[in-house]
C-alpha cells in the first residue's frame, strides 16, 4: 500500500476525512494547529463539503462539534492542552449528554512547554470526564485510532478523547491511509430527544448510564489491541509504557527483544486485569508515561505499601519535562552514551519580535509614557507574539497567564488601587476571551486602559484568520459599552510616535475604561500576502 509522509497532526486530519466527518471545529494552538490547517487545505475535504473554518475559541469549537454530533453527523474538535481548560465546561458535560453522531476530541499536549505556559496532561481530563482516551505511539497508529475512535463513539454513544503530544504532532513518518473510506452520516436526531437536556432529573439518569458504561469502556480497551501485554523472560522488572514512551523504550533495544514483560498502553481506562497481571508477575515495576504519572499514581496508591513502583514519583525519572530515549535508557540502567558538552562560547538565541513588527512600536510608546508619568509594574499582557515584549530590550509587560487574563487582571489590580492599569491583548485573544472581561470593566467603570493590538491576524500560531479585526473590533468595543470618545485607533509606526504618545497620555488620564487600538498588519503576513499577489500576477 502506498505510504504518505505525514506529520502526526496530518495523519489525524486525513483519517478524519476518511472516517466521514462532516465538520472540524478548532481554535489554533501549537502543537494542534496543523490538523485543522490540513483539512482547510484539502481538496478532498472541499469536495466533501467538510466545514473547517476557525472557531472563536475552544469552548465554541467544542459546542459546535457537540451540536453536529446531536444532529447525527460525525465531528472532530481540535485544540492544544490549555484549550481544553477553556472548553472544559462543554467537554465535561458532553460526557453526560453522550454523543449521537461520532464525536472525537483531539487534544495536543506540550510536555517540556516548547510553546506553552504549562505541561498539563489531558489524560487526566479524560479520566475526570470519565470517557475513553486514546494515546497513539506513532503516526500510523494515530491514523488508525481516529477511525476506531469514531466507531467507539457511535457504538457506545460517547465522546472520545484522542491525546497526542508535541513529538508525535510534529513528526513525519510514512502513513498508509485506508483504501475504503466512509460516507458522511445522514442527518439523524438522537433517538431520545431529551438526551442532551441536562436538567438534574435527566442528568442523573445520563450520569448513571455513564457510570455503567465504564465497564464497556474497559472492555473495549481490553479488546481493541491498543493495549497489549508483551511477554518477557526476566521477571525481575515489569515495564509499563504509554503512548510515545513505548518508542523510547524500544529505541533502547535496537534489533532485539526486550527481556522484561511490557504492558504497552494506548487506550484508557486501563482494564484492572491488565495491570494486575504484570504486577503479580514481576518483582517490581517501572512506568514510562509522557506526562503526569497517571498510571504510576494509580498503581502506587497513597500509602505506597505494595511492590516497588518506579517512575516520575520516586525520582527514577524527573517529574517534569518530556521523556526521550536517553532518559528512559538511564532509568533502565543503561549507561549514557558518550557525548561532548555544549561549548562555553554558545549563547541562547531566544525567539524575538520580528524587526518591523507593529507590536514594537506599541511597546515603545507605552514604555515611554509609563517612564514619564508613572511607576513600573502596571502592564497586564496576554498570549500571542506580543508576549515576547516581556524580554529585553522592551521588558514591557508584567503578566501573561491565560488567554483573556490581561483585561480582567488589569481590572482586578485597578479595583485594588493600582491605577491606571494597562491591559495589552491581541485581536485574536480579544475575541477568544477578552470581550467578557471588558464588559466587567465597563460595568464597574474600572480605571483601565486596554490596548487591542490589531495586526489583522493570529500571528503567533502562524497567521490564521482572526475572528474579528478592523472596524469590527470598534463595533464590538462600542457594543459592550465603551464610550465612543475613549475608543482610539492609532497607527503603530515610528513617524506617528509623538501623536501616539499623546493619545496614550490622554487615555491613561481618563479615570474610566478606554480602549486604544494600534492597527497595523503583521509584517510576516504582509510579506506572504505580497508574495501571493506577485505569484497570482505572474501566473
Amino acid at each position: 500500500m502506498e505510504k504518505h509522509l505525514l506529520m502526526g497532526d496530518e495523519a489525524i486530519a486525513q483519517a478524519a476525512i476518511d472516517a466521514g466527518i462532516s465538520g472540524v471545529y478548532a481554535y489554533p494552538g501549537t502543537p494542534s494547529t496543523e490538523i485543522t490547517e490540513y483539512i482547510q487545505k484539502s481538496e478532498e475535504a472541499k469536495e466533501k463539503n467538510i466545514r473547517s473554518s476557525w472557531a472563536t475559541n475552544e469552548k465554541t469549537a467544542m459546542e459546535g462539534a457537540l451540536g453536529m454530533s446531536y444532529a447525527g453527523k460525525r465531528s472532530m474538535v481540535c485544540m492544544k492542552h490549555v484549550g481544553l481548560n477553556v472548553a472544559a465546561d462543554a467537554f465535561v458535560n458532553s460526557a453526560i449528554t453522550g454523543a449521537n453522531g461520532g464525536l472525537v476530541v483531539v487534544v495536543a499536549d506540550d510536555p517540556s512547554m516548547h510553546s506553552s505556559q504549562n505541561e498539563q496532561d489531558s489524560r487526566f481530563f479524560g479520566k475526570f470526564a470519565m470517557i475513553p482516551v486514546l494515546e497513539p505511539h506513532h503516526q500510523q497508529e494515530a491514523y488508525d485510532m481516529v477511525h476506531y475512535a469514531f466507531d467507539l463513539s457511535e457504538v457506545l454513544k460517547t465522546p472520545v478523547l484522542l491525546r497526542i503530544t508535541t513529538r508525535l504532532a510534529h513528526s513525519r513518518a510514512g502513513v498508509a491511509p485506508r483504501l475504503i473510506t466512509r460516507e458522511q452520516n445522514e442527518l439523524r436526531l438522537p433517538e431520545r430527544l431529551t438526551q442532551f437536556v441536562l436538567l438534574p432529573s435527566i442528568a442523573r439518569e445520563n450520569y448513571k448510564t455513564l457510570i455503567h458504561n465504564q465497564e464497556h469502556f474497559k472492555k473495549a480497551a481490553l479488546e481493541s489491541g491498543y493495549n497489549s501485554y508483551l511477554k518477557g523472560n526476566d521477571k525481575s522488572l515489569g515495564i509499563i509504557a504509554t503512548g510515545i514512551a513505548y518508542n523510547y523504550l524500544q529505541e533502547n533495544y535496537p534489533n532485539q527483544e526486550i527481556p522484561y514483560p511490557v504492558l504497552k498502553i494506548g487506550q484508557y481506562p486501563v482494564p484492572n486485569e491488565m495491570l494486575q497481571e504484570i504486577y503479580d508477575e514481576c518483582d517490581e515495576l517501572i512506568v514510562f508515561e509522557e506526562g503526569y504519572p497517571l498510571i504510576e499514581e494509580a498503581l502506587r496508591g497513597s500509602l505506597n505499601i505494595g511492590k516497588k513502583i518506579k517512575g516520575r514519583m520516586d525520582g527514577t525519572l524527573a517529574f517534569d519535562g518530556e521523556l526521550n530515549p536517553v532518559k528512559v535508557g538511564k532509568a533502565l540502567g543503561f549507561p549514557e552514551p558518550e557525548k561532548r558538552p555544549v561549548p562555553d562560547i554558545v549563547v541562547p538565541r531566544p525567539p524575538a519580535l520580528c524587526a518591523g513588527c507593529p507590536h514594537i512600536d506599541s511597546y515603545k510608546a507605552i514604555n515611554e509614557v509609563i517612564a514619564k508619568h508613572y511607576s513600573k509594574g502596571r502592564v497586564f499582557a496576554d498570549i500571542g507574539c506580543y508576549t515576547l515584549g516581556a524580554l529585553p530590550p522592551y521588558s514591557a509587560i508584567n503578566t501573561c497567564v491565560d488567554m483573556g487574563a490581561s483585561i480582567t487582571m488589569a481590572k482586578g489590580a485597578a479595583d485594588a488601587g493600582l491605577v491606571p492599569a494597562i491591559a495589552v491583548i491581541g485581536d485574536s485573544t480579544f475575541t477568544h476571551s477578552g470581550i467578557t472581561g471588558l464588559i466587567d470593566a465597563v460595568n464597574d467603570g474600572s480605571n483601565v486602559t486596554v490596548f487591542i493590538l490589531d495586526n489583522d491576524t493570529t500571528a503567533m500560531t502562524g497567521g490564521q484568520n482572526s475572528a474579528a479585526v478592523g472596524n469590527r473590533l470598534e463595533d464590538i468595543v462600542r457594543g459592550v459599552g465603551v464610550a465612543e470618545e475613549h475608543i482610539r485607533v492609532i497607527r503603530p509606526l515610528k513617524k506617528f510616535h509623538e501623536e501616539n504618545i499623546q493619545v496614550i497620555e490622554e487615555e491613561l488620564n481618563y479615570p474610566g475604561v478606554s480602549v486604544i487600538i494600534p492597527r497595523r498588519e503583521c509584517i510576516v503576513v504582509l510579506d506572504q500576502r505580497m508574495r501571493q499577489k506577485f505569484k497570482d500576477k505572474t501566473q
Partner: protein
Amino acid sequence: MKKDIIISGVGGQGIVSMAAIIGTAALESGLNLKQSEVHGMSQRGGDVLSNLRYSDKPIASDLIPEGKADMIISIEPLEALRHLPRLSMEGWIITNTNPYNNIENYPDIEGIISEVRKIPNHILVDADTIAKDLNARRSTNVIILGAASEHLGFELAVLENAIIKLFEKKGSKVIDQNITAFYKGRELAHS
C-alpha cells in the same frame, strides 16, 4: 543503512526544505523515515532544529538519542555547536560559516569556527558568499546540503531528483539554480 541527522539553524533559514529534500530521497529509496521538527514559538527568530532519521529497519523514536547523531548539518555556525551533545563521538559536523546575527551578544565568530574545528570530522562552507556569487541567495541551504551529500548514503541522482521534486512548482530557473548550488557545495566539501 541507518542515518541519524540533526539539521539546525535559525527560524526561516530553510531547515524544513532541507529536511524535505533528504526525506524525499530516503522515501524514494524505500527506506523508513522519521522527521520531527519544531513549530510555533521558537520559529520566531529563535533556534530551530529537525531530527531526521532513515533506516532500512523500523525506526522507534522520533527523537535521536543524545550522543548518537551521525551528523549535524547546520545553516548557521553557532547553531551547529548548540546541539553538539547530540553528535556521536565519530560524527560529522557540516556547517555554514556565516553567522546569522540577530542577538546582541553574538559571540566572536572566530571562536565559534575554532570550536567547530575541534571536531575531527568537520566540513566548513562559506555558503552565503557562494550563494551570492551564484546569484542564488535563497539556496544557502542547498549548498550546505551539497557539502553534506557524500555522507548521506544516497546516489547523486536520487538527491538530484529530490531537489527537482521540491522546487518543481517554482519553475526550471529555480530548479537549475538549486542543482548548481548543490554541486557547488559538494565540490567545496572536497577542497
